[in-house]
């Protein structure tokens, strides 16, 4: 690990330098494996948060949301220090991936840390100056739980930047018109041109319960099942 950045009070981005990295696609993940002195091992998946920088000594970024009592996430966010070595495998997964040459608009729906692989897509689009319309809907508990918030606000303010909406489940800023709460059908189906006619590719990512709800809302709104790609992180 070459650097660490706090994203929120409970989420950190870890920068990892890997020898012989041949690059990866936005949406792919790595498996991280920890080994204790007695041989016990724990492995978990973490999405790559940013596009490949290229080069031989690739620097990868992952963003880890610390779960209370989480065996691996608490270790990575609390105990790992710059200079430590980790075992990882990847890049993994070719399905939950945004193809940059696909002209279809992209609707991104994230719950909590589910934003991580979607952020990689947003960053890839920005770095390659790709005009494909992007819309992000990010559901978080409170404004303080927004990861990458400054960067998203900056990108959204640029001409041709992605449209970004935050939904709050517990506490919203005073200016927010939406009553805080879980995802509702009209959060994803707001009558804008982002609905069916545009036939967007939908990427939905987050805790399993969130992904189930969001994809059910998308299906109910008429999105075709084969245009919805999901990545369930586990959990409720």
């Amino acid at each position, binding site marked *: *690990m*070459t650097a660490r950045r706090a994203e929120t009070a409970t989420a950190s981005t870890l920068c*990892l*330098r*890997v*020898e*012989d*990295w*041949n*690059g*990866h*696609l936005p949406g*792919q*993940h790595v*498996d991280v494996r920890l080994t204790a002195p007695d041989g016990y091992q724990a*492995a978990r*998946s973490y999405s790559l948060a940013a596009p*490949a920088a*290229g080069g031989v000594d690739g620097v990868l970024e992952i963003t880890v949301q610390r779960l209370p009592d989480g065996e691996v996430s608490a270790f990575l966010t609390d105990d790992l220090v*710059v*200079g*430590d*070595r*980790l*075992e*990882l*495998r*990847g*890049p*993994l*997964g*070719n*399905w*939950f*991936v945004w*193809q940059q040459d696909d002209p279809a608009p992209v609707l991104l729906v994230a719950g909590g840390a589910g934003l991580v692989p979607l952020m990689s897509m947003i960053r890839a689009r920005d770095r390659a100056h790709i005009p494909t319309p992007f819309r992000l809907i990010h559901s978080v508990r409170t404004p303080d739980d927004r990861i990458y918030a400054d960067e998203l606000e900056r990108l959204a303010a640029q001409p041709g930047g992605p449209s970004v909406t935050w939904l709050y489940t517990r506490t919203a800023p005073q200016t927010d018109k939406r009553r805080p709460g879980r995802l509702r059908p009209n959060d994803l189906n707001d009558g804008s041109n982002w609905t069916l006619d545009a036939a967007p590719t939908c990427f939905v990512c987050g805790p*399993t319960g969130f992904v189930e709800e969001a994809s059910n809302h998308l299906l109910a709104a008429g999105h075709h099942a084969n245009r919805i*790609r*999901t*990545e*369930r*992180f*586990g*959990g*409720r």
Partner: protein
Amino acid sequence: MTEHRDGNSLAGALADIFAAEITSAQVQCRACGLATTLAQLLVYGPEPGYVGRCPGCAEHVLRVAKTPAGTWLDLGGSTSLLFSTMAPSPTGAASSARTGRVSS
């Protein structure tokens, strides 16, 4: 109550035994005939093993367990796997997974 994931999350476990990136392969459910990509299976596990279930009928299509003897793979719930020549092939990215070690 269920905490399943998507077939995407099998990529690491299957990279041990397949040279091709298998999660974008198409798999047909033996029980109901539905064809999906492996990444679209509903995955339970990882312990005692991974169970990939059909999104149409919930029958198990694929099972993987890691034991000290090796990796056990059961594809008995599927009729076929299709590795499409059109499968998304990442430009400049490794389409086969490798094990990397992070150095400081």
